[in-house]
């Protein structure tokens, strides 16, 4: 499936910013989750948080740095315990594999617990085309499935929906009025989805962490839907990005300690489930077949490059919650399943610079809040800046902009030209200044002055003032 978007980031931002309620909900949700993480990290104390972050980073470096080895080990271990692993190069191969498994099983209904990887490969659509109805069981995912939308946040996919929105969706789904009382909404979803859990032929999950040492798949939820999806249907399919691996249970520990704390501020989610193989002889529930679909889809190409650390992501959304851009535009502005800083890094890398290089170019102010918040210490703002460099090298910047940058570099590379530039700026802006502020400026500066006043250049530059005090050039 071609991933090129039909709109630019700026167009999507304009469209999303017009949805005042949505933006307010996104900002409030992100703020709440950010404070929850800060509180949880605070409770651990700086030293312990740093120790865990260092351990988590080391765990991911080890796994990604030796991914072939650990993938091999993972496959061997899953096979040993009676499961099957399917290594899939891209979306097409992965969806084909899943629909094949479904067809061989004569499946008609699949229940899914939350998986960004399945969103990435548009699995539900492929299943539908193959005659299998896929029902999302995570409440947020169920809501957006009914709405026909993409998730707007990695952890809270329906963060942008109000209770009225949800009531409307459920009323339409039920064919009878459902009020906007959250408890009634919950009751409806629980009953509706319970039916699906019990009768489904296939359970599909993602995977928060895969442990190579024992071929185990770890799932964290608060709702319990992953436990239902992995205990009721006859077949369990895991769809997991290859980068979700860690080598050992020792490596799992810091990630287990940080993931829930960073995503929601909890010590642990209500349910942490570890799946190692299909059901054992004598069990009355659990899947008879376990299939693990390991997805590449552009990830392996990042190894050994300056972008390799993007593969360390544990999908906690800490970076989204602190990002001033995300909080102002919401997840849908990013145009693909991953949003926020990690989305602005991964989307151009996995889907192609062609459609998405404007995410790092226009979707970040490089403030670095994301890198500070990341539990595994991915230098997100560095990666965003490197993507900009790559965009320039690949000439994905308009010729006029490139020329302007070269001109600017030339002007500022000599002290005399720099001073001339400063004097010209003062002369040109003097007529536009009101009380020391520029409320409007022409050309590229108009983009700034549309939302902010620009301080007018001072009549007496710092250089002159220092000179007066004997501190400038030539001062002893």
């Amino acid at each position, binding site marked *: 499936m071609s991933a090129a978007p039909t709109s630019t980031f700026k167009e999507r931002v304009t469209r999303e910013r017009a949805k005042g309620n949505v933006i307010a909900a996104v900002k409030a949700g992100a703020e709440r989750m950010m404070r929850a993480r800060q509180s949880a990290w605070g409770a651990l104390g700086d030293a312990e948080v740093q120790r865990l972050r260092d351990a988590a980073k080391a765990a991911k470096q080890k796994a990604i740095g030796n991914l072939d080895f650990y993938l091999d080990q993972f496959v061997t271990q899953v096979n040993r315990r009676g499961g099957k692993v399917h290594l899939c190069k891209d979306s097409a191969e992965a969806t084909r594999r899943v629909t094949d498994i479904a067809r061989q099983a004569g499946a008609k209904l699949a229940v899914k617990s939350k998986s960004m990887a399945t969103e990435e490969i548009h699995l539900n659509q492929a299943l539908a085309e193959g005659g299998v109805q896929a029902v999302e069981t995570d409440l947020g995912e169920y809501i957006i499935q009914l709405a026909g939308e993409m998730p707007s946040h990695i952890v809270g996919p329906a963060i942008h929906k109000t*209770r009225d929105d949800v009531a409307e969706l459920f009323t339409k789904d039920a064919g009878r009025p459902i009020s906007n009382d*959250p408890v009634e909404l919950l009751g409806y979803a629980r009953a509706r989805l319970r039916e699906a859990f*019990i009768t489904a032929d296939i359970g599909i999950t993602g995977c928060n962490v895969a442990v190579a040492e024992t071929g185990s798949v770890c799932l964290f939820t608060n*709702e319990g839907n992953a*436990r239902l999806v992995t205990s009721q249907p006859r077949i369990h399919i895991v769809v997991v990005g290859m980068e979700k691996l860690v080598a050992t249970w020792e490596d799992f520990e810091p990630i287990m300690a940080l993931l829930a704390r960073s995503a929601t501020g909890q010590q642990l989610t*209500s*349910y*942490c489930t570890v799946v190692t193989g299909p059901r054992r002889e004598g069990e*009355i529930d*659990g899947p008879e077949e376990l299939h693990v679909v390991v997805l590449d889809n552009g990830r392996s190409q990042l190894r050994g490059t300056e972008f390799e650390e993007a593969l360390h992501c544990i999908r906690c959304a800490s970076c989204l919650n602190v990002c001033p851009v995300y909080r102002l535009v919401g997840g849908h502005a990013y145009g693909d399943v991953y949003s926020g800083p990690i989305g602005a890094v991964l989307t151009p890398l996995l889907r192609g610079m062609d459609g998405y290089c404007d995410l790092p170019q226009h979707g970040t102010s490089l403030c670095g809040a994301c890198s500070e918040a990341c539990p595994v210490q991915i230098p997100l703002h560095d990666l965003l800046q490197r993507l900009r460099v790559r965009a320039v090298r690949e000439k994905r910047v308009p010729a006029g902009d490139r020329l302007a940058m070269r001109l600017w570099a030339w002007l500022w590379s000599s002290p005399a030209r720099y001073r001339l530039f400063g004097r010209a700026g003062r002369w040109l802006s003097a007529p536009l200044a009101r009380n020391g502020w520029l409320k409007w400026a022409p050309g590229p500066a108009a983009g700034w002055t549309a939302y902010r006043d620009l301080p007018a250049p001072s009549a007496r530059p710092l250089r002159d003032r220092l000179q007066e005090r004997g501190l400038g050039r030539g001062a002893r």
Partner: protein
Amino acid sequence: MELAEDFVRQWQALGGKATVVSSYAEAAAYLADMAGARGVRTACGWDDPVLESAGVAGTLRSLGVTYETPASGLTREFCEGATLGVTTADVAVVETGTLAMAFGPGRPRSVGLLPPSWVAIVPAGRLAPARPDLIKWLGQQVRSGQAPAQIGMCSGPSRTGDIESILLTGVHGPGDVHAVLVEGEA
């Protein structure tokens, strides 16, 4: 016993109900009380020495509850129709308020999951202070030759914040969860 009281506090803070009792007989009494209060008619449980010691089957059946375990032919469908599930736990971690369970033959995944109420009767000897203890137990389980096909680590009731970040419990898993810690037992 301090660890037990600390666990109770943590489990309650997470939205669960918990109590410390001094004998299996008291645990059975607690079970009878809560089942009576909720009008339980059908219940499911594990085949496990702890439940046997607590006389769970006898207690519930004497209340007129239809109670099944795998040994008496328990099925998934029966669990779905039940309003109460009874299990034990293999380790109870105080710091995180976690009950960890290795599922397997005789210990179905569905028992503490499908019914809206869940009671875990846990000998106090299985209490452990902190997360590293949980990881140690987990590592031992999955590294063994007989690794369980599924391990469940449960820290409170089923919950969500997906609608306007409002905290709601009892989404898919049980909302009414009880930890009964039995002092003096391992």
